[in-house]
């Protein structure tokens, strides 16, 4: 494969301005992430210390093999919800290596309201288990939660994809032969008790760990029985009498060591044979990504420059280089894995839509995973294009992409608006993992466009009511709408709502995709086949 020839000058004023802007954005992202990960009220940290417990991150670091990566997902979940009361949605999820095996780790954070589950916590846990199901990834649960956040029970309990889904997913994981280990560090009460119970293996820490469907207060209220936490659901009882728990640990350290020993017994899954070549670092400096992304989100840039700073050796075999130029398609290696890249260089036209659909078919034929790099404002509109059938061409691309049997990964690099999101494998299309860059915006249409449309609706309404229309009122409506809209466009809002699997620094994209692709190979390839293409 030939190396991409970069046309960027790292010394130009534009490059430097972009770089400054993007570094600032990444700096802001890192600050928010640091806050969400580590800032806790001192009294919560003190309480943890008094109980002889470690923080969730410390447990994870001890669980992971030394010198190995950890891809944390959705670190800023719930950052714009609940007034910030649930940083990272009170739970930590990530993919890493334990005892040489690839696993997904999910840990309750006991320093946030005792690890209580908010609605977004439940959504994040369900998402983690969905990832486990899609990728056949073994799961390690680090349990330490007070249970559902009672005040918001209607948003986390009754519906199809709420708390019950966790246990349904656990059961189906087990049916698939994907192993689960639970380490019980705190109290697993009510529904939470099912996590260790539905795990294939579990370890419970003596003294602090407990598993029961109802805790002592509930038992006292229900039947009047007086019983201590240890007697009701402590380590010794469960590991010697009831058999609900498999191993008792004298300390959190020992529980983690036992957990690692358990994982070391697990057979290594057979991955399907993805085409693999020797790894090469990108030829261009990945830090140049900061200078390539424009500071103005409406300005266009060449995705090939982005690709050149992510893929092995900056080598790229472009498909149909002269046709459908607003969509860049081609093969490249990421950490040695051969992937098919699909990236936006403008709006989608008929030809680019057809090209995209065809390339997706080629990747399915070749068993090549797909990586979508999104920067799409939508499909071309207008009479000419409608007459040429842009709607059905867009539909064909969506059909090909939806029915793809290879794993798909999406990185939202700058913008994802309207129907363009669909063809380019947005959230609804089951990318195994989907990441956003901090500068990214997502919405049904751009902020200005939305505001203009809404202003027009408002003006029509005022006209119908016979109200006077003045420029100042119009402007006010425009500003208000845009402001409200803008908040919901930002990557932070999207990640807060778990519309992605996390914001990542553009520099981390290569490693994140490497881990993601590796993890995805544990599940077998899907069945080939497509629905009806409207030709």
């Amino acid at each position, binding site marked *: 494969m030939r190396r991409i020839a970069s046309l960027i000058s790292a010394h130009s004023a534009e490059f430097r301005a972009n770089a400054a802007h993007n570094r600032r954005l990444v700096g802001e992202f890192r600050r928010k992430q640091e806050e969400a990960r580590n800032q806790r009220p001192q009294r919560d940290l003190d309480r943890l210390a008094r109980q002889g417990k470690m923080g969730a991150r410390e447990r994870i670091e001890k669980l992971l093999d030394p010198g190995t990566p950890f891809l944390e997902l959705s670190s800023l979940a719930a950052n714009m919800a609940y007034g910030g009361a649930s940083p990272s949605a009170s739970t930590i999820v990530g993919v890493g290596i334990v005892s040489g095996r690839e696993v997904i780790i999910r840990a309750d954070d006991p320093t946030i309201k005792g690890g209580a589950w908010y609605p977004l916590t439940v959504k994040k846990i369900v998402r983690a288990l969905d990832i486990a199901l899609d990728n056949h990834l073994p799961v390690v649960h680090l349990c330490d939660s007070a249970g559902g956040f009672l005040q918001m029970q209607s948003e986390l309990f009754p519906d199809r994809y709420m708390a019950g889904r966790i246990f349904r997913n656990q059961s189906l994981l087990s049916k698939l032969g994907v192993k689960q280990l639970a380490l019980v560090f705190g109290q697993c009460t009510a529904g939470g008790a099912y996590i260790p119970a539905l795990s294939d293996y579990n370890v419970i820490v003596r003294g602090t760990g407990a598993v029961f469907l109802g805790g002592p207060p509930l038992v006292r209220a229900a039947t009047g029985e007086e019983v201590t936490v240890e007697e009701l659901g402590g380590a010794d009882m469960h590991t010697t009498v009831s058999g609900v728990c498999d191993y008792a640990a004298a300390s959190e*350290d*020992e529980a983690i*060591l036992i957990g690692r020993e358990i994982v070391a017994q697990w057979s290594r899954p057979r991955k399907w044979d993805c085409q693999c070549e020797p790894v090469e670092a990108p030829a261009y400096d990945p830090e140049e990504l900061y200078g390539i992304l424009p500071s103005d989100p409406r300005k266009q840039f060449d995705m090939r420059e982005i690709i050149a700073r992510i893929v092995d050796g900056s080598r790229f075999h472009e498909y149909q280089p002269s046709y459908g130029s607003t969509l860049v398609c081609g093969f490249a290696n990421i950490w040695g894995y051969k992937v098919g890249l699909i990236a936006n260089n403008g709006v989608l036209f008929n030809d680019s839509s057809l090209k995209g659909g065809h390339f997706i078919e080629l990747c399915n034929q070749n068993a090549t995973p797909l990586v979508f790099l999104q920067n799409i404002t939508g499909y071309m509109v207008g009479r000419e294009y409608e007459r040429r059938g842009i709607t059905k061409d867009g539909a064909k691309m969506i059909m090909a992409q939806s029915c793809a049997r290879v794993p798909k990964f999406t990185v939202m690099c700058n913008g994802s608006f309207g129907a363009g999101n669909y063809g380019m494998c947005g959230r609804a299309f089951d990318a195994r993992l989907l990441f956003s860059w901090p500068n990214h915006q997502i919405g049904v249409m751009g902020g200005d466009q939305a505001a203009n449309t809404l202003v027009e609706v408002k003006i029509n309404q005022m006209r119908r009511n016979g109200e006077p229309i003045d420029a100042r009122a119009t402007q006010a409506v425009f500003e208000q709408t845009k402001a409200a809209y803008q908040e919901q466009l930002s990557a932070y809002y999207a990640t807060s709502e778990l519309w992605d699997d996390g914001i990542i620094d553009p520099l981390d994209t290569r490693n994140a995709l490497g881990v993601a692709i590796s993890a995805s190979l544990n599940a077998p390839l899907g069945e080939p086949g497509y629905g009806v293409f409207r030709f």
Partner: protein
Amino acid sequence: MGFLLQLDGVAHDIEILARRPHLRLRLNGRDYEVTAPGSEGDGAQQIEIGGRSHGFVRADLGDRQVLRMAGRTFEATLRDPRDATGAGGAELDCVRAPMPCSVVEVHKRAGEAVARGEALVTVESMKLQIALLAPRDGRLARAPEGAGETFEKDAVVVELEPRDGV
């Protein structure tokens, strides 16, 4: 978590930092790059650390290694991290009845020192005699008085005094 290597009685803390392009280890806070790790097993070997090649001869005795390097002989063991966590602890203080049973003979009395694996009490149940053994070294705090005493399943038959410093 790090590894603890005992070399001639002195503890060395070893952490794995990275594996590529070369193995990098942190030994007692000092970082080393191991460009050629040698192989396991007995015999003469070379290991390359920080650009220097060291010849040595290894004898792998299973739970310990004996190395001859630079005209010296070293003996090394790798500590099982679980030993450091106070594993076992309280559960090794009691010996419980494996099923409902009665005492046939008491071999050790309260206050006596016992060694790990030593028979403490022989109990009988369902025409089967079982010797209850000491789970660790220690001193008996409580033991049955004599033959005939009966115990329910999981009842504590013998109790050891708590270990010091654990």
